């Protein structure tokens, strides 16, 4: 599931596979802008990874998404 999160984020942002690492800070990736994040959150929800919007606003790194994955 962690790989799926990274894949969704990379595809939404138009980034090459492997660009994002768990420690990558979202604020340091300009491609992960507000609209890309909206589409990524929507795609994750469709894949069973639901992140409440108020919690999504607090996400800082890619690894922060992993807490919402059901392994």
């Amino acid at each position: 599931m962690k790989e799926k999160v990274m894949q969704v984020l990379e595809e939404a942002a138009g980034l090459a596979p492997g660009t994002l690492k768990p420690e990558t800070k979202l604020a340091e990736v300009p491609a992960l802008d507000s609209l890309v994040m909206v589409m990524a959150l929507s795609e994750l929800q469709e894949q069973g990874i639901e992140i409440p919007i108020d919690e999504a606003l607090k996400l800082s790194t890619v690894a922060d998404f992993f807490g919402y994955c059901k392994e």
Partner: protein
Amino acid sequence: MNVQLRLVREDDLPRIKNWRMQPDVTRFMNTDPVLTDEGQRRWYQTVCQAADQRQWVIVLEGEPIGMLYLIDIDFDNHHCSWGYYIAVAEKRSLPLAMFLEWNLYDYVFDVLKLHKLNNETFVENAAVVKLHLLCGGHQDGVMPQQVYKNGRYYDVSLGSILAGEWAAKKTKHKYDRFVFEDLPQTGEGPA
């Protein structure tokens, strides 16, 4: 996050002209204008005299980064429409987008005392349609082939949120509060 919504000033015009002609800004707007300094001055004069709109520059941590505006403010029927853009690409964060929308809801319903806030969004701009939903609004319908631009028609999504809907939802959210500069009292406003 320190954000101020500052009413547009004459010395903003060159900046706004450049922003409004950026391809990534105009892509999902109704027009792709070629603006002139003289045209901008006329637009500014209109804005200064219009009671049915507000045009703010979004100032983030002291830096002007975009525009937020209310249009078609109707104090008889208690509604208006809105839009915004962040012209500085690296500032387009999800928290900023949502906090702007929520703060605008507060301004429209608590300060202007209106009942309904409308939005119109190109259907192809799916992320913004979803963003309005995430912020608490709803989609009311779609106007097929509503805008003709660059040789083709675009469908436009109609959305809105009512004052009562926002009142019921806002307490569930924690968000930074932004300061809106307001017009001097003119006698035009909520009854």
